């Protein structure tokens, strides 16, 4: 009787011990993960922190973590005329993303829902355009844009950003269309739904999250684009990255002001990305590999 109880006890202890060990290793790995996270996030944290510093606290060795926060640098950035740049970035991003979706959605539909001959070639063509370095096309693009008098104009940026994001969007949207279950379409067709109903009532609701993911990724790339903006705009149509360059060269390198400008330039995408991170993951993994 006693031995049975002792046996049971050792058994229970034996079961418990690995569980404790498991939890300990779990905590250890969790600590490692947080350590890595802090290292990777630190530059972002430091950017935001520096943006609230008075300029004198931005330059210090050792770095200052405690200081009297001020909004002064943000005020100066705005009074340096950031508003129009922000507006240009927003317009170029939003309209180019809408155009991308308008062009990519039907194309992806054609490439996935009702397979056509050579769909693979078409898909490969789209993605291969992305592999050609964009700098190689800058000379003719610059000359063409100059000759039609469209230098320093937002429509020029919109067209180029649309072309830049279209291949990725077609690729992503196609994979989202592939996830629409065939039975649902069959059922809709048997119920006598015509193409329009099939699209609006079956297909679009299913791919809506995919549309959001595609839009987000295209928006990130459009908002952050620097090369075209630098070379094709100067005053009227210049976007946020160009403002950063001009800001640095005209004001010299004042770190707190730079940090404030950088924070303002990054915050829209940062917040959108944080909110929509699930879509971001889905979009990046593209379902294509499933």
């Amino acid at each position: 009787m006693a031995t049975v109880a002792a046996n049971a006890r050792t058994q229970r202890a034996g079961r418990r011990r690995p569980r404790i060990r498991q939890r300990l290793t779990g905590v250890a790995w969790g600590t490692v993960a947080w350590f890595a996270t802090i290292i990777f996030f630190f530059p972002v944290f430091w950017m935001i922190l520096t943006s609230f510093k008075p300029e004198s606290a931005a330059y210090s060795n050792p770095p200052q973590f405690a200081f009297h926060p001020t909004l002064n640098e943000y005020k100066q950035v705005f009074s340096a005329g950031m508003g129009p740049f922000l507006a240009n970035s927003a317009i170029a991003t939003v309209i180019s993303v809408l155009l991308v979706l308008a062009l990519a959605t039907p194309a992806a539909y054609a490439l996935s829902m009702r397979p056509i001959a050579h769909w693979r070639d078409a898909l490969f063509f789209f993605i291969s355009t992305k592999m050609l370095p964009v700098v190689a096309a800058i000379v003719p693009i610059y000359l063409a844009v100059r000759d039609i008098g469209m230098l320093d104009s937002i429509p020029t940026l919109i067209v180029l950003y649309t072309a830049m994001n279209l291949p990725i969007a077609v690729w992503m949207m196609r994979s989202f269309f592939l996830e629409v279950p065939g039975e649902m379409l069959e059922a809709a067709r048997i119920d006598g739904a015509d193409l329009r109903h099939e699209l609006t009532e079956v297909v679009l609701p299913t791919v809506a999250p995919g549309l959001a993911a595609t839009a987000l990724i295209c928006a990130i790339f459009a908002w952050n684009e620097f090369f075209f903006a630098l070379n094709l705009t100067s005053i009227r149509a210049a976007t946020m990255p160009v403002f950063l360059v001009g800001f640095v060269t005209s004001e010299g390198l004042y770190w707190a002001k730079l940090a404030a400008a950088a924070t303002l330039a990054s915050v829209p995408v940062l917040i959108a990305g944080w909110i929509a991170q699930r879509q971001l993951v889905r979009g990046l993994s593209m379902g294509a590999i499933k």
Partner: protein
Amino acid sequence: MATVTAGKAVHLPGARGQGRRTSESWLRRIPLLPALLFTILITQIPFLLTIYYSLQSWNIAKPGSPHWVGLNNYGAVFSDPVFYAAVLHTIEITFGSVLIATLLGLGLALLLDRKFLGRGLARTLLISPFLIMPAAAALLWKTTMLDPVYGIVNWVIGWFGFAPVAFTTSQPLASVIATVVWQWTPFEMLILLAGLQSQPRDVLEAARVDGASAWSTFRELTLPHLRSYLELGVLLGAIYVVNTFDAIYMITQGGPGTATTNLPFYIYQRAFEGFDIGQAAALGVVTVVGTIIVATIALRTVFQVFIENEARA
């Protein structure tokens, strides 16, 4: 083209009659056309024009109309030592950044694949570098991180007794790569994390019950499963990193000397600082041809994303 596609369409299953087939196959193609035409017009025609301009001698800062010089610009490109340096730096930046970012991304993805306190928050914070505007990120790394006097990195290495380093001038290539790696690691991490989380749990559980070590489980189950995700991450990362311009423009301006000049930055310099249209175009053509060769070899041999797609079709 029309005849070829019509001929193909006959082999589609469930078809009824040639005439209807042809018109239907065209109907199906119509939604594709706007995107296709737009892409060809904006991305392909400029490349053809680049070839044309590469055969001209044309400096827009100098008077005199452009004139035909045949292959002279190519001769100049291939006898230009900066061109070879730029090729080398492009390879170093692309290869180094994508390799390091993928390895770090894999490590972070493995860490985030386990449950721990605040995992959601950690993931949110970890994707942030990818969301920061690259031009802003480059400026911040150049100043607040890598500055020899006030930079955080020098402060940290000071704890371990190292003397401050003027990274952007003494280690310019490493500075650029560090910035690019910082931005692209979260991207690789997200793709690989999606791969890890799509792994069937019961298989892993079975391996554990069978007494397989963590390492052999990783090597024999996880890594093969991750293969297509790794390929996709490397492919997309390389496509973007090979065009690295922002970091170089902001941090080093290609220097000191030409220590960090890559092909995109060199083409930019030839075109917008040297105003030499012909040579910039020739550089562009050489870059495109080189990229096509490398991409074709890579896609045919290493990457199976497309090959597997084919099998699935």
